[in-house]
């Protein structure tokens, strides 16, 4: 307990941001317990009601409660962003470590595929992939995964190459250690801190990219309560019913800022250079 308090005292910013993230997750998870109006309940006659009264954030074109849609939207946005980030981290790390450790043909194949994907603007390629697969939240996650793993693979590979030819690796090989053991015992621990920091910083970006795809019609489909889709739906009423864009936009903004700051704090903590100070 004392160690925890010392940690919090030492890393106030990280502690506060972690608490905020915990609050966000708690809000999302507990939404069905305290939100009285379903985000999918519509009353067409109550369309475009301004914020106030029963509808804190007003209602949309189908008379659905914008507040409950924004809160429920966090469930979809957080889940899909975290799923995407973990998937990208996993795929990029596995491919990057494998390419860096084994080298040769594997390295060439993996890195040339990565080069090909990097040569296209990420979002444009994601739109193309999502367009081919059809609009859905899962397809949007897959589309961004396909274009985002390269960054992690390159990073993991470069970190592996830094230690690949160290004496202790050769020593391990000489003493009969299996490749899988070396990968788990030496390579993975060496690359993970940097990759985790990168992933934490990328959660906000992933969230924005998913919202972007939904906004463009390549992600979540109606009637799903998803922030990017809500922005798209509110766009044509922007001038007359601005609350349809303000609240989901504000939600995206807050969550992205929190996750970006959390990533920065995590980097400050895990960065070896900071430890030496």
């Amino acid at each position, binding site marked *: 307990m004392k160690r925890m308090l010392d940690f919090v005292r030492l890393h106030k910013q990280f502690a506060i941001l972690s608490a905020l993230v915990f609050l966000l997750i708690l809000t999302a998870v507990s939404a069905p317990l305290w939100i009285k109006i379903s985000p999918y309940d519509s009353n067409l006659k109550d369309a475009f009601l301004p914020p106030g009264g029963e509808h804190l954030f007003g209602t949309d074109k189908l008379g659905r409660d914008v507040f409950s849609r924004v809160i429920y939207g966090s469930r979809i946005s957080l889940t899909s962003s975290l799923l995407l980030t973990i998937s990208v981290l996993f795929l990029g790390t596995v491919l990057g470590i494998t390419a860096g450790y084994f080298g040769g043909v594997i390295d060439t194949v993996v890195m040339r595929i990565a080069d090909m994907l990097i040569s296209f603007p990420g979002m444009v390629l994601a739109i193309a992939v999502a367009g081919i697969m059809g609009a859905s939240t899962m397809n949007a996650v897959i589309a961004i995964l396909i274009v985002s793993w390269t960054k992690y693979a390159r990073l993991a590979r470069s970190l592996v190459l830094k230690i690949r030819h160290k004496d202790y690796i050769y020593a391990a090989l000489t003493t009969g250690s299996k490749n899988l053991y070396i990968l788990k015992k030496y390579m993975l621990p060496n690359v993970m801190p940097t990759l985790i920091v990168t992933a934490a910083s990328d959660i906000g970006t992933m969230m924005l990219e998913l919202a972007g795809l939904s906004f463009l019609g390549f992600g979540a489909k*109606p009637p799903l309560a998803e922030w990017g889709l809500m922005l798209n739906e509110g766009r044509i009423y922007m001038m007359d019913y601005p609350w349809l864009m303000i609240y989901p936009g504000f939600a995206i903004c807050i969550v992205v800022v929190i996750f970006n700051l959390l990533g920065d704090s995590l980097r400050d903590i895990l960065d070896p250079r900071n430890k030496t100070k």
Partner: protein
Amino acid sequence: MRRIINKKTALILTLLAVIAGTSLAGCAKDNTNNDISTNNETSTNDENNTQKTEEKDISNTLNFGCTNFSDSLDPSTMINAAWCVSRYGIGEGLFHFDDEMNADYYLCDNYSVDETNTNWVFHIRDGVKFSNGNDLTPSKVVASLSYMYSQEAEGTGNSTPSQYMTYDSITADDSAGTVTIVTSKPYADLCSILAHPYYSILDVEQGNISENPIGTGPYAIVSYDTDVSIKMAANEYYWGKEVPYQNLNIIFIKDTTTKALAIRNGDVDVVENINSSNDLTTLQDSSDFNVSEATGIRCGFSYMNQKGILANEALRNAVLLALDDETMCNITVGGMYTAGYSVLPSGLDYGYQNLKDSTPFDVEAAVKCLDDAGITDTDGDGYRELNGQMINLNYLTYDSRNLTDFTEAIAVQLDSIGIKVTVNTTDADTEWNMLVSGEYDLLATNWMTVPVGDPYSYLDNWYSKSTANYCGYANEEYDRLYEELESELNKDARAKLIEQLQQILIDDAAVLVHGYYHSNMCSVASVTGANIYTADYYWITADIEPSN
């Protein structure tokens, strides 16, 4: 270093030389004109001239913003392509609809028909040329009409001109200037049929029809950037009034708000069909814009595919009972539609007031209807099952005339009675192809109900023996009355038959009717004549001209 200085010196000298040369040129011009003026004045005059030329160029260009309904401009490809050829002022027909949907003479200036109503002789207007300079001859007319039918017969395109007219022969007599059509059955009014965009006359022997159809309209295509824009120029051979604009840019804008913003920012001069009531009201309230509106003959509806799960009549009845048409029309789409329950608009003279709505909005009745039919939620997932399978209606729509708003509103209303609806938004071409192939449960669309001045061909959608019956609806009584309508030439008797056909469709819950659309066209104040016509076949005409 020296090289750099030399380069700089050379650059400065070059610039000085250019400035000096320009000044001398100005003096020379003054001298030639014997005009006593200072260099400054000359410069000002030149600027004014340039400005005037630019202004003239701008006033000679019309920018028209519209939704792109077809990537191809070959009218045989699909009906939307035929419409585009007519709407963009490229192709014209032998006849032209007025606002009462009567067919007026156009490329034809006279006709005669025998007493059997099968032998029609059309005289082609003299002096008309295509935009490539070729004369419009009866042979060209026959070639154009034959092209449409041969494409349909070969299955090359989805257009169905035989839906409106079938013939035994079409022959040209160039010396007499006539085209003779011997129809395979009597037609009460073939002129109205020939006013349909399927029968726009093109020079089919010239050019790439899908990207550059050659017609007799006021404008001709210069370049076509698929799905982006079309650059057009005045048809120098146009037979009608002088074409007011030298250049015409058709700019494809899909989104209705973008259309409204584009005209408000001056990026376009004219836009068709702004579907957001808020944006439309803003333009109507401003003296800087003209708004032309027409109501009446367009019906927004959804096909109910009766080859699939919607073959179940109880399910169809429940779907219609659960929908609040009035609220959808008045609130969800902001009054852009008038609510109704028949496939023919209430404003047309086909006995709407005598029709009885079999499925008025009643959610409790919808639920009871489903329960009574045994369509219940047996697995507790919130959605009902039919024959052991969860009902999940595949609802196709495309972004036009508030159709997506309707589909979303319908999806949430059906969800409340335990019917899951998956809305899939696509483009017009894809939707049409999926309609033809039957890959849908519900399919939102928007049709002109009297495409040839009469709803006969539109009602063909539900005639079981028709190739245009894409929804698989079949009713023997409907078929019998429809066949009777085919041969009935008396106007009042036709109206009565059409009324009966409407009631059958209502009683069978054959169609999900959204309402009757209010078309509009908006233009900036410096443009006049940008009117929306009752027949939605005409957007760009020679009547659109600078207001001064």
